């Protein structure tokens, strides 16, 4: 088997590139270790049964991850659609300052391109993903409106919006990859509040539904149950293809002119480490960022019907997003307001933290929370540290005998200060809105939805793994198009930037394909 471009990973990053390349006539094959999502396989059905944690889910598609030395458990969905299957579809572009962290704040690194360079790609992927939102947010530079109108911000959003107006704080209707009108044959959203598990009307954009059928009609070949095991190089150091195992454990080699990785910050770096390539910088697997995440839930006396609504984000606030030296830390966090779901969600660690409510007080506590609450989710910017990393486990292997990933991750003092400040401010927000009780989840362990930074992009091969187009400095026909390449994490949900970057890289490859250095 051979192809022009072989992509590893069938999530948003992989399919965005696959769709664009195959539409241009490029022969594309995508290897996906999981399968098509079926209701009942762990991301559907009763709300809290779903788990994004591969160590808990333990499906055949999941490689165990040793997270025993990590403050945060990594989360993901391994299958067609990737983590769009279980994400909340919160759609946030980075801000211009997020691309210039070193220049503005003197920490970490600038990105090798600017917001302005990525902005046209943001607009295009927003149409692909059917993003709903409200135009004119003054937290961003002027840009075109998202393709769909914002979702109802519901009673909780209205209360907090009014409170922020009184406080003089920023808020804005949330942007989500959730179709508020019928869009490209799916939706519209009916506010069932099931976005984190499964959307019965397919209003939430999951790329198995929204992207893959079109990519396959354009000619992309999708191979499921195919776990990439190593990238092979020729004598000139060009990638020749990928060795993968099928469901039975049998090995295959798929030849390709170009290899493109889209396996998230753990899967991609593990594959590079297993292959022993593209690591002259020593940074493959290093600088893992997972967005330390805290919650502050407000409980209100009034009935808010907070089991309904997009989930997603009803409203956002970027009031404290940008750096302010007076706060004692650098960078900031995005807040997204979410509903709190059905009664069974009233006791889950997300968003309620780990406090005990069991026993005699159980029914009273659930009665206070259920329907009467809203939660600020705080996505804190995670600064890169080479000590936070993905490594190959020295002892443990998967079913094929290859090392599983081990992650080492500790939050920093900057993170601790950042989350303490933001949780205090979120409490202030909710109190101003009339909350009579607050529950703080200071740092949720099972919150590693965003796996970033383990194959940093940059201009200098000595200090980065790939260039600004995602091309490996060491292997010129190897690209990485997922969040692994992020030099910094920003404090934003990353799917918008991952998809925009993937599209930008795919188009660069198309423009440069006649000059592409491929195996002899």
């Amino acid at each position, binding site marked *: 088997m051979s192809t022009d471009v072989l992509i590893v990973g069938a999530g948003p990053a992989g399919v965005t590139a696959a769709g664009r390349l195959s539409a241009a006539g490029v022969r594309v094959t995508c290897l996906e270790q999981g399968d098509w999502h079926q209701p009942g396989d762990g991301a559907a059905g009763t709300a809290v049964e779903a788990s994004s944690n591969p160590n808990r889910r333990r499906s055949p598609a999941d490689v165990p991850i040793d997270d025993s030395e990590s403050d945060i458990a990594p989360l993901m969905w391994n299958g067609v659609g990737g983590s769009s299957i279980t994400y909340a579809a919160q759609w946030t572009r980075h801000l211009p300052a997020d691309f210039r962290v070193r220049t503005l704040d003197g920490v970490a690194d600038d990105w090798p391109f600017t917001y302005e360079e990525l902005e046209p790609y943001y607009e295009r992927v927003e149409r692909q993903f059917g993003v709903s939102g409200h135009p*004119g947010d003054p*937290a961003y530079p002027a840009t075109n409106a998202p393709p769909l109108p914002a979702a109802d911000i519901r009673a909780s959003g209205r209360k907090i919006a009014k409170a922020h107006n009184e406080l003089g704080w920023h808020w804005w209707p949330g942007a989500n990859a959730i179709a508020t009108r019928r869009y490209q044959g799916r939706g519209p959203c009916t506010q069932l509040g099931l976005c984190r598990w499964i959307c019965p009307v397919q209003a939430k954009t999951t790329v198995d539904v929204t992207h893959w059928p079109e990519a396959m009609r354009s000619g992309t070949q999708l191979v499921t149950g195919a776990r990439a095991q190593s990238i092979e190089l020729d004598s000139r150091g060009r990638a020749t293809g990928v060795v993968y195992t099928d469901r039975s454990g049998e090995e295959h080699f798929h030849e390709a002119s170009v290899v493109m990785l889209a396996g998230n910050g753990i899967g991609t770096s593990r594959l590079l480490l297993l292959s022993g390539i593209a690591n002259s910088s020593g940074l493959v697997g290093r600088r893992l960022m997972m967005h330390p995440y805290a919650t502050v839930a407000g409980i209100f006396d009034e009935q808010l019907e907070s089991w309904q609504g997009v989930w997603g984000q009803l409203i956002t606030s970027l009031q404290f997003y940008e750096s302010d030296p007076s706060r004692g830390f650098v960078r900031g966090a995005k807040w997204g307001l979410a509903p709190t779901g059905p009664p069974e969600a009233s006791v889950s660690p997300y968003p309620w933290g780990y406090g005990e409510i069991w026993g005699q007080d159980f029914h009273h506590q659930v009665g206070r929370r259920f329907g009467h609450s809203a939660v600020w989710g705080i996505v804190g910017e995670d600064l890169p540290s080479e000590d936070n990393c993905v490594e190959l486990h020295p002892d443990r292997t998967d079913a094929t005998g290859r090392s599983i990933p081990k992650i080492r991750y500790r939050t920093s003092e900057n993170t601790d200060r950042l989350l303490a400040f933001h949780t205090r401010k979120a409490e202030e927000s909710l109190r101003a809105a009339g909350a009579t009780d607050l529950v703080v989840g200071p740092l949720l362990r099972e919150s590693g939805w965003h796996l970033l930074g383990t194959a940093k992009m940059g201009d200098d091969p000595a200090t980065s793994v790939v260039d600004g187009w995602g091309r490996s400095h060491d292997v010129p026909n190897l690209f990485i198009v997922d969040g692994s390449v992020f030099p910094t994490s920003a404090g934003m949900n990353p799917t918008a930037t991952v998809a925009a970057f993937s599209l930008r890289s795919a188009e660069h490859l198309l423009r440069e394909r006649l000059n592409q250095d491929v195996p002899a």
Partner: protein
Amino acid sequence: MTALATAASTLIPAADGYPAGGDDDVLRRLVSNTSAEVRDAVAAIEAGNGDLVALRRTHPEVVDIFAGALVNAYYGTPAVQARIGYSGPVPQPAEAESQELNELIAPVLVRGPIHRRPPQPDVARGGTP
């Protein structure tokens, strides 16, 4: 009472017209859960005679898994749904009412842009990428 019922009723006691977590219907739903980790947790509870205090000392994650599965089963039972007055969300149009939104965001717009404008790379470091 079985070990499983003891543990379930310890976490969710009967009160205020609510059945206990150890109610037969709840336990039927609980043990029908096909998740491997839930099956393992249920087995551990039974092996420990429903002593949650002891199990939490040695395997707190098992108690958390059991409790999560229990609460799912609990709120799936008709008796509990009837008592709490909730049997699921109701479809509602999702689109925001634009006039209301525009009135609410007016003060945000009045305050103006809040993002920083970084210098462009050619100014900041002498060249574009």
